[in-house]
């Protein structure tokens, strides 16, 4: 399937908006056309009726002998619609007699004989009644003409009514309708947003919950909802999560149980080897070699079991920090000393970092240092230098930085993330990351640090020489005096 450019929610909102726009435009168009037809029709009908009546009245009062000079007075007696001009046209030199009804505002109507379109005048010349709608200057007019048979030769009574007020009304109606359409469209979009949000809120909750689960909060569950459609999604999601949690817990419990079960035989092995060690001198050479191998491997085995147990506790989530305040320089020096069986490793510190007191889980951070040190023993000639300072990335928040350097071959850039994964030795066998020889050491380091909110990464040495530099950061641990 082609990836869609817009999300489902955006499409719902756009649909609502476009729907509202189209609907309101159609309604506006219908309303406008009906109203405009109706208004104009009424006005023109009225104009026609009054014109016909006036023409008849005029005709009744006229004889061929009537003086043209009296016509003005006769026209003034007529009742006409507002904004209407009247006139009489003769076949012998057509003459506009009166341009205004009495009482009409003089400026309201700029209509004269010459305003009449030629087509209309042509129609009148044939002596026929005619109607026509046309534009004069800035407004539409509706003109009606009736012949007056009693008057002298082919006189036509002409009445021209302005439709300007009607078109004005229609213009403002159009503006109102367009405004209403715009408001309707906006409301449609708002409604679309509301519906979209309502509709997709279960989806958003599901995705938020899934993100939480991915981050390790396996006990995340969605609240049950009464809606039958969404309810099914929620309950299957919850069922899936429970199954996943159970599965993961079973796996980690298995690791924990296995390492637990290994402790008893390991105890017997440890004790037995100790008893044998006591009698090492009584043994033949070959047995001594075998005993040494046994002792070394039991030690490795013991560390492996302990690391496995430790890491399975992280997996089950049954871990908590047991923090204590310690002097950082002293702590790191002692931890290194314990890890290297007393070999002196120089611990240098940034100016002012010599009396930092930090609140940390001693056991865990000591294990971090021990595992890093063992890792350095394995791949280099051990840690050659430790550097302590405030973490510039966590400036002012009480973060500290512990860096351990060695003089080994360093870590290739493409392996710098990999080495912190479990059993990370992979096919290359000799890869870094296996403090215990089985590849759990550095992943335990990561877990211990994560519990503190800290991080670890590996970089080149500051001085550019060959070797690795492991950088541990612990945020917010410095205790204010």
């Amino acid at each position, binding site marked *: 399937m082609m990836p869609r450019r817009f999300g489902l929610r955006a499409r719902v909102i756009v649909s609502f908006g476009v729907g509202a726009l189209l609907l309101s435009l159609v309604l506006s168009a219908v309303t406008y056309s009906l109203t405009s037809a109706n208004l104009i029709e009424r006005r023109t009908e009225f104009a026609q009726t009054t014109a016909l009546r006036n023409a008849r009245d005029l005709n009744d009062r006229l004889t061929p002998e009537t003086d043209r000079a009296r016509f003005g007075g006769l026209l003034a007696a007529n009742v006409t619609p507002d904004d209407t001009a009247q006139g009489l046209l003769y076949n012998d030199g057509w003459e506009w007699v009166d341009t205004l009804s009495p009482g009409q505002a003089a400026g309201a109507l700029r209509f004269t004989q010459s305003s009449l379109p030629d087509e209309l005048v042509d129609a009148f010349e044939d002596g026929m009644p005619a109607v026509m709608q046309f534009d004069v200057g800035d407004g539409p007019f509706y003109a009606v003409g009736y012949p007056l048979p009693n008057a002298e030769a082919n006189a036509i009574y002409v009445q021209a009514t302005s439709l300007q007020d009607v078109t004005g009304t229609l213009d403002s109606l159009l503006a109102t309708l367009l405004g209403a359409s715009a408001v309707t469209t906006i409301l449609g979009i708002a409604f679309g947003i509301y519906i979209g949000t309502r509709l997709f809120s279960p989806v958003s909750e599901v995705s938020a919950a899934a993100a939480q689960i991915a981050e390790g909060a396996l006990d995340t569950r969605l609240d049950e909802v009464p809606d039958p459609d969404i309810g099914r999604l929620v309950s299957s999601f919850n069922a899936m999560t429970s199954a996943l949690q159970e599965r993961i817990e079973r796996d980690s419990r298995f690791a924990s149980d296995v390492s637990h079960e290994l402790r*008893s035989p390991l105890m017997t092995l440890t004790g*037995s080897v*100790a008893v044998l060690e006591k009698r090492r001198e009584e043994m033949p050479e070959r047995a001594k070699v075998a005993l040494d191998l046994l002792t070394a491997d039991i030690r490795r085995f013991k560390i492996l079991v302990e690391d496995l147990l430790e890491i399975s506790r992280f997996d089950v989530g049954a871990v908590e920090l047991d923090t*204590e305040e310690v002097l950082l320089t002293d702590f790191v020096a002692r931890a290194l000393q314990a890890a290297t069986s007393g070999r002196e490793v120089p611990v240098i510190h940034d100016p002012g970092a010599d009396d930092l*007191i930090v609140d940390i889980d001693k056991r865990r951070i000591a294990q971090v240092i021990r595992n890093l040190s063992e890792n350095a023993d394995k791949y280099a000639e051990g840690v050659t230098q430790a550097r302590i300072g405030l973490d510039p990335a966590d400036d002012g928040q009480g973060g500290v930085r512990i860096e351990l350097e060695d003089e080994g071959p360093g870590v290739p850039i493409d392996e710098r993330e990999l080495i912190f994964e479990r059993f990370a030795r992979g096919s290359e066998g000799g890869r870094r990351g296996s403090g215990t020889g089985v590849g759990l050491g550095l992943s335990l380091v990561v877990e211990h640090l994560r519990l503190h909110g800290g991080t670890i990464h590996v970089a080149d040495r500051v001085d550019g020489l060959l070797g690795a530099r492991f950088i541990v950061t612990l945020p917010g641990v410095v205790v204010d005096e």
Partner: protein
Amino acid sequence: MLTVEDDDSIRTVVKLALEDEGWGVLEAGSGEDALEIFRAEGADVVLIDIMLPGINGFEVCRSIRRTTDVPIIMVTARSDTHDVVAGLEAGADDYLTKPFEPKELSARIRALLRRSRSQATDTMAMTFGELEVSPDEGVVLLRGDQVHLTKTEFKLLVELASGPGKVFSRETLLEKVWGYDYFGDGRLVDVHVRRLRTKIEPDPADPRYVVTVRGLGYKLVP
């Protein structure tokens, strides 16, 4: 010493190893046997596995603690569970996590049996309010009545009493009382201080004598 352990192989090897270190070892395969043997023959140190069929290790520990202050070492399967604290609360003086080195066990036993050695104040009885501590006689009096403390609790009190008002860090107390190095388990100190308080403090929740100094350790208020 008496070792209580239901796993035959472990019990045998612990006995062998401890005998190598020069200790005489009595064995018990269950809590019931342990209490019987302890009543009949006694022991200088008792090593108890918490996971026992029948009466569990905590019960054995509490039973022994009711009658004597003999040093007790608990053997736990894990170091970070509530087992450790529960074992210490039940009256154990120290604990080890399986699998341990026999040498380590031997060192722990020696530390527990070592007599409290306070500095210059050794023979002098010291008084703190209504509390009177006589290191050389091994006696603690509260308002004139003798308070019954275990050896470890006594050593802890004497250590604190050697510097009235001075703050002792958990590391220092671990080293002086239990013989641990810097990386010993601070919970040992915490639980023992708690037990000591229930015996000598008028109100253990608001201690008058053994006071916690946050982030630093403990001190005895003169």
